[in-house]
């Protein structure tokens, strides 16, 4: 075999390895994505189901649902024309809240600090920015357990409402990592225990 032929075989082999690697990585990613919801259902003892609502003109609205006696998750993906909407809402039954606490938690400092709530935990306050008008109520909600759960959530923005006897945690991004889902569920469960 000439040196030229050897080079061609080597290039072909390298191309085959790279191509195989790409196909393997894609297959692994798809498998991981498909496992996110059933795995979460198994972990928290919930029932997993999917639902699709047809919308005319090739548009779609799809749901991933987790349902249990004291916790439910509704994840919606909607495509209408070029507009995509994603929403994930986790609702958990909780202790009764004496006063409602509604707050947003962001991983970047908000444009205005007027409604910024500090917890006194410097490590937390440097990494998560909480905004709400009911500062005292929110400070009571943000126990060390809740703060630790919040730090485990990778989302840029989380919207939280503690009212009546329930906790609602919501975020807008598409769930592409199991941590985004389990982190938010753990947060809802931590909040549900109350201050």
């Amino acid at each position: 075999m000439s040196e030229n032929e050897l080079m061609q075989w080597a290039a072909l082999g390298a191309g085959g390895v790279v191509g195989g690697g790409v196909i393997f990585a894609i297959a692994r990613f798809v498998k991981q994505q498909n496992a996110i919801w059933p795995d979460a259902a198994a972990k928290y003892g919930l029932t997993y189901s999917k639902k699709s609502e047809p919308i005319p003109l090739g548009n779609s609205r799809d749901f991933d649902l987790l349902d249990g006696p004291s916790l439910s998750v509704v994840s919606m993906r909607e495509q209408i024309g070029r507009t995509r909407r994603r929403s994930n809402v986790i609702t958990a039954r909780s202790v009764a809240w004496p006063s409602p606490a509604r707050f947003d938690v962001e991983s970047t400092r908000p444009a205005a600090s007027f409604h910024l709530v500090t917890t006194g935990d410097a490590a937390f306050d440097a990494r998560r920015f909480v905004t709400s008008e009911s500062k005292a109520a929110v400070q009571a909600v943000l126990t060390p357990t809740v703060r630790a759960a919040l730090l485990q959530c990778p989302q840029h923005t989380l919207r939280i409402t503690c009212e009546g006897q329930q906790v609602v945690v919501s975020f807008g991004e598409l769930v592409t990592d199991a941590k985004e889902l389990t982190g938010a569920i753990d947060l809802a469960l931590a909040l549900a225990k109350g201050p």
Partner: protein
Amino acid sequence: MSDLEQYLDQLGAAHGFSKEELEANRRGAIHPAQLARSQRGAVSGPVFWVLLVVVLLAGGLGGAYAFVDGSSSPLSRVDRNALIGILGATAIGALVFSAVGFASVRRAARRREAFRAGSVTVVEGLVAKGGVRGSASTFWLDLGGKRFFVSQRTWELVTHGATYRGYLIAGQMVTFEPVR
């Protein structure tokens, strides 16, 4: 300067109002600067549409003239059809833009009139922020059962779930402030 005053400065800079205007709206009055701003575009709006139609007519008629000038005389049947096409498209385009322009100018005039005759109404409640990001980003605030479209800068300054009071003139939220 208190936190609230700083925040009002930020909101005013983003949404386009001054503290004096906010103060006037709190009293139920329209500030002269708001009235002056609302009356802008009384001349530039119609002028824009007239110019657009004139340019369209000039382009279409000029193109038709150039087409006839460059064709053999008498015009062949194909050239005559092409000429009819050019003139027809010019006429339809001019009519459509005239109609759209007329409607837009009338709408703006009605808005200016409503602003002149209007009074300040107040909406208050928890704000729900909504938005669509992408090539055509849109941001809105739902307050007191009404939806107000705002700039991204204003939207980012508002806290979701907090109580705000908005002052409306002719349906537009001209100023707003946090209640707590």
